[in-house]
């Protein structure tokens, strides 16, 4: 009996301790932290999939920092691309977030909400003077006061066209579509002349397309989704009609991100969107196609993709961590990075006049780079960071149903808004 009781007591004790951990809350206190002081000591820097391709560049940047600030040591951690979010999540949950971490805005938001990231606006007077507004705004979140990351490199989308297919099916490469309506009209010509074998359009709309059409996704206070408007209905209706006409391949309904680029590389579609350096990827996968590619500005407002460096609020060496984040995102280091990675652009105001971005060498790679860089001036984050994965999945599912004609566009939008609001308030 005594043995049984002891066993029960042991089990209960372990279970009680473990169950207690179930809802343990991450500390979200608003404690004040010291951000000024001597720049020395050891800090950790975590990047996202830069090794081994950009090891030399990053090591050079780190060496430069240690040289500029004697007595500092940077421990560089580079995480693989796959599973990066899970890695950061486990680091944050276990209190092991590196001092400086590469976090895009959607990754930074939940960490900022939990009080794990430093408000760099408060810690750094010059932030807004030195970085472009749109990039800084990427790290400002509704319901939060402050900026939770130094913008690092930026990107946007441009249009890529297969000039050979366009000419073959009666389109003029000098008169590329600049509106969705023109795109649909040209898609009709391609479909008819290719007997349905080639498509021009190959993606279904997402939240981004609603923003481009002038639809507000969130209410002004950021507390409610409001994108079920007549303008949004019109966007979905346009795609639904195009789908019914056979102007889009059927698999757009189950397509994942970059599906259109894959079809473009296979020369099954004549148009895709991609980043400023996508021609380089096309060159690797289909070198003969790359020569025929023509770039043009994106239709509507260009999207803004931001990468940034966030500083952990729990860093034991905040002055050095801030200095490191600033150093990595400085105009000089960003310009050098953009040279190593064609198609990405610096987030600093000082880089605006740099001819390496604003002047094309006449090649289609140079043209795409110039178009992307010029587009950045008006680029916006088209999908609010508060739209999480589950919301985005649900929205895409409803849009698929609307485009396939199973439900009306209004029904799809209403359902999507209801579900997103439910998840937002979860």
């Amino acid at each position, binding site marked *: 009996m005594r043995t049984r009781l002891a066993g029960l007591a042991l089990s209960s004790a372990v279970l009680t301790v473990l*169950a207690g951990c179930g809802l343990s809350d991450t500390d979200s206190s608003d404690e004040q932290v010291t951000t000024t002081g001597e720049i020395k000591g050891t800090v950790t820097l975590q990047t996202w999939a830069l090794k081994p391709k950009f090891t030399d560049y990053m090591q050079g940047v780190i060496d430069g920092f240690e040289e500029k600030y004697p007595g500092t040591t940077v421990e560089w951690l580079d995480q693989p691309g796959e599973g990066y*979010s899970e890695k950061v*999540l486990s680091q*944050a949950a276990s209190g092991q977030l590196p001092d400086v971490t590469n976090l895009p805005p959607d990754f930074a938001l939940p960490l900022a909400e939990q009080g794990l990231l430093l408000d760099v606006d408060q810690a750094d007077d010059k932030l807004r003077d030195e970085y472009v507004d749109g990039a800084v705004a990427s790290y400002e979140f509704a319901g939060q006061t402050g900026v939770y990351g130094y913008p690092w490199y930026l990107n946007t989308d441009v249009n890529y066209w297969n000039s050979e297919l366009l000419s073959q099916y009666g389109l003029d490469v000098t008169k590329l579509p600049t509106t969705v309506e023109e795109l649909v009209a040209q898609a009709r010509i391609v479909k008819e002349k290719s007997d349905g074998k080639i498509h021009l359009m190959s993606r279904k709309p997402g939240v981004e397309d609603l923003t481009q059409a002038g639809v507000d996704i969130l209410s002004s206070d950021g507390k409610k989704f409001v994108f079920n408007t007549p303008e949004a209905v019109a966007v979905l209706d346009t795609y639904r009609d195009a789908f019914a006409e056979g102007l889009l391949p059927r*698999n757009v309904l189950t397509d994942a991100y970059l599906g259109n680029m894959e079809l473009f590389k296979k020369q099954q579609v004549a148009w895709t969107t991609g980043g400023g350096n996508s021609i380089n990827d096309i060159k690797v996968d289909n070198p003969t196609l790359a020569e025929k590619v023509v770039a043009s500005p994106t239709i509507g407002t260009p999207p803004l993709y931001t990468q940034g460096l966030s500083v952990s609020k729990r860093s034991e060496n905040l002055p050095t961590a801030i200095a490191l984040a600033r150093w990595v995102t400085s105009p000089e280091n960003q310009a050098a990075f953009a040279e190593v990675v064609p198609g990405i652009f610096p987030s600093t105001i000082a880089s605006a006049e740099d001819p390496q971005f604003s002047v094309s060498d006449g090649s289609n790679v140079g043209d795409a780079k110039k178009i992307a860089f010029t587009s950045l001036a008006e680029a916006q984050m088209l999908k609010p960071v508060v739209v999480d994965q*589950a919301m985005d999945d649900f929205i895409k599912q409803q849009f*698929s149903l609307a485009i396939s004609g199973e439900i009306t566009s209004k029904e799809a939008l209403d359902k999507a808004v209801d579900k997103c609001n439910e*998840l937002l308030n979860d």
Partner: protein
Amino acid sequence: MKTQRWFTPWLLLGPAVVWLLVFNLWPAINTVVLAFTNAKPLGGGSFTGLANFERMLNDEQLVYALVNSIVYMLVCLPLLLFLPLLLAVLLEKKLPGITFFRTAFYTPVIASAVVVALIWTWLLEDRGLVNGLAQQLGFITEPLPFLSGRWLLLFSAISLTVWKGLGYYMIIYLSALGNVSRQLHEAAAVDGAGSVRRFWSVTVPGVRTTMLLVSVLITVSALRVFTELFVLTNGTGGPGGRDMSVVMLIQMYSRGFTGHLGYASALSLLLFVITVGPMLLLLRLNRKAA
């Protein structure tokens, strides 16, 4: 001389018990706890009572996921229960070169589910081999929507599961067939029973216990299907998410920094219940039959 104290077994069992509690029991208990909260991956969840379960009642996606998972199970179960048995009966014969066929049928089992699903995607897409051949031969004029039709997609995934599972269950049946009495077969043959009659009257009763085991394995794996549907639909669960399974739905809610862990845990509990239900039923049926 007394050398053993009351706590000696506990000392010996201790590490294993702790391991069991931490890595087996704890995640299960934690899932139950989370199902009654609105927890997020970074913590901060609060107790919400039965709210997650109430939400299930109005969740249209859950209805699709449940219907798909159950259809998956109902179609896979008979096919994978009898086709591998027939295959095993055929391959049981000691003929020259039979090992080659046994290995050939087992090959899909060894292959990664993701790789197999990707190969099937290429076969079944609009411009894939199957549609291409069918159009060339004039059977169809338009490609069949294997990967974008509501039910056709589900049945494409079921076909993949059956094709991949045949070899696995065949091996289980092959070992069971070795225990079926040869004398009974001979006696039945002497009595004039044909091969079909002998199959139903001698072979099937002889492997009944194995069939029960196979039924349980098929039921559990069919209700937990993920990879086939995920890869064939590029992770979208089919047009409008109407071909997703319960596991895909759980995955959809639990992903990323803002994962809705509370609801995902409640869905996990539901899946656990609907998985255990058919298993208990099968065991009960077997006990009755015995």
